[in-house]
Each structure stands twice: as structure tokens, then as C-alpha cells.
């Protein structure tokens, strides 16, 4: 139906245009969520920066970068496997898309386990939300808040990956749903790129 026909039927052109920014509504919703979540993480990191900057003897408890480097590698690689899953889904390869999505979820689980192991190590050294052996108690509060918020996002992402992967395999979801979930997973990866330098690397013992 041409635009002239629509106008003839009494529709205004404003009602006949596509979705905002010409992208699907679900995808736009995910982008808006990502922008909002960016503000949440940014507020946490900026608040952490204020406190760290304003505290003269800020603790530097991290001795090794091995664990955090491994976690970074796993999360970055999981973004690549997510892309491979999306590529398979777009090509109509259901088995491949399901496989890559589950590999991404497995990488997320591995990341979460390494994260929990690191937390337990710090807790065993005497670090809690309100005190630690190295100095101001604010360190524990900010560290657990920021990494905990990120870990919550990873955990939610892993659950979503499994649910969407299974439903995609069952035919209830399509490649668009994989793409939208991929946006979220890449965002989780993106946030980690800021958490690592600000929370870990700036607090290394030299």
C-alpha cells in the first residue's frame, strides 16, 4: 500500500511510520535498559572514585593479577562466543546457535566461580563490608558493592542465556532474541573493562 493510499484512507503520515530510530521495539527497550544501567554503574564507580580520592591511606590489598587477568580473558572470550552464536542464529543454524549460547553461559559460570573464589580469599584475610586489616572500612564496602553488582548482572545473564538458548532451540524464540540478549552480555563485558582498572589495578601492591 502506498503512502498516498494511506493518506486517502484518512491516516496521518505520523501514524504510519515505523518504530523509533527504525529499530525493533524489543531491541530499543534493551538499549534503553543498557543506557539506564550504564548510569547505575557509573554512579557507583564515580562514588567509589570520590571516596578513594578523599581517603589518604587507601588500602592496596591485591598482590597478584593472575585471577583478574583470567577473569577478564574469560569474559572477553565469552563476548566472542556470543557473537558466534548470533551469527549461527542468523544463518539458521539452530544447533550451532544453541551450542555457542551454552558455551557463553558456561564461560559466565566459570567467571562467577572465579569471582566467588576471589571473594572468599579476601573474606578469609579478614575483609568484610565494614572492616579490613589494611585500613579504611570503606574499601570493603565499595569493593563488594561494585563487584557484587557486576556479579549479579553476570548471574542474571547466565540464567537468561540458558533460558533463551533452550527456548530458541525449542522454536519459541528467534535470532532477534539472541541478538537482544547478546547486547546485554556485551554490556556486562563492557562494564568489566572499567571495573578492572579502577577497582583492581589501581589497588595493586607494588
Amino acid at each position, binding site marked *: 500500500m502506498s503512502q498516498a493510499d494511506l493518506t486517502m484512507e484518512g491516516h496521518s503520515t505520523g501514524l504510519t511510520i515505523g518504530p523509533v530510530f*527504525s529499530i525493533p521495539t524489543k531491541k530499543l527497550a534493551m538499549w534503553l535498559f543498557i*543506557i539506564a544501567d550504564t548510569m547505575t554503574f557509573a554512579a557507583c564507580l564515580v562514588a567509589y572514585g570520590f571516596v578513594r580520592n578523599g581517603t589518604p591511606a587507601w588500602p592496596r590489598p591485591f598482590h597478584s593479577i593472575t585471577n583478574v587477568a583470567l577473569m577478564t580473558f574469560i569474559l572477553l572470550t565469552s563476548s566472542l562466543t556470543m557473537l558466534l552464536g548470533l551469527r549461527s542464529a542468523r544463518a539458521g543454524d539452530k544447533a550451532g546457535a544453541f551450542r555457542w549460547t551454552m558455551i557463553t553461559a558456561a564461560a559466565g559460570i566459570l567467571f562467577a566461580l572465579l569471582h566467588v573464589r576471589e571473594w572468599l580469599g579476601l573474606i578469609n584475610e579478614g575483609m568484610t563490608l565494614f572492616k579490613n586489616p589494611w585500613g579504611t572500612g570503606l574499601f570493603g564496602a565499595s569493593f563488594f558493592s561494585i563487584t557484587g553488582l557486576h556479579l549479579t548482572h553476570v548471574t542474571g545473564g547466565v540464567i537468561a542465556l540458558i533460558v533463551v538458548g533452550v527456548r530458541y532451540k525449542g522454536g519459541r524464540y528467534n535470532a532477534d532474541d539472541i541478538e537482544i540478549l547478546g547486547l546485554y552480555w*556485551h554490556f556486562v563485558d563492557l562494564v568489566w*573493562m572499567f571495573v578492572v582498572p579502577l577497582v583492581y589495578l589501581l589497588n595493586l601492591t607494588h
Partner: protein
Amino acid sequence: MTTIAAEAQKSGGIGKDLIVYVCLLALAGLQFVIAYQNIDVSQMFVRMLAVACVEAGLAELFFMHLWSEKRVFLWFVIIFTVSVLLGMQYGWTDSFRMVNGAPFSK
């Protein structure tokens, strides 16, 4: 050619994704190298943040396919996000005042 296949072709092959992945790994490695440099914390912070911003840009443009979206949407995301992030920086003077005391007090 179907729309999906055309879109996949337009977004480039797996090679481009691999190149971006390797770049992200290299930039992440660079952050670890910076962490072991014998420089002031503020300099370290600026360098690491700059690298993180480049990493985030690459991930958003190519992994999240923002580059393939309409330009108006690309600019909407960039302008909206950056303006709010910049707005959050208004309180840094208070943070410095906690350490150095009130500026211009004499």
C-alpha cells in the same frame, strides 16, 4: 538473498569480529602493563580510563553493532550517555576538598 543474510553480509565476516576481539585483548593487556608502571596514581588513572574508553567504544560499535544502526540512533546513544556521565562529575571538587581542605580559603 534474504534480509537476514544480507544483514549478516553487511556487518562483515567473522574476521572482523576476531580482529576486534584481539584488539580488546591487547587493550586489556595494556591496562595490566600500565598498572605496573612506576608512575603517579593520577597519571595511572587517566591512562587506564583512556584505554577503557577505547575498549568500550570498540565493544559498543562492533560487538553491539551500534555502527550498523541508523546514525541518528548512534548519536542519540553517544550524546545522551556522555552528557549524563559528564554531569556526574560535578562533585569532584568536594572530593579534593576532603583531602586538601577548602580551596581559595586564604
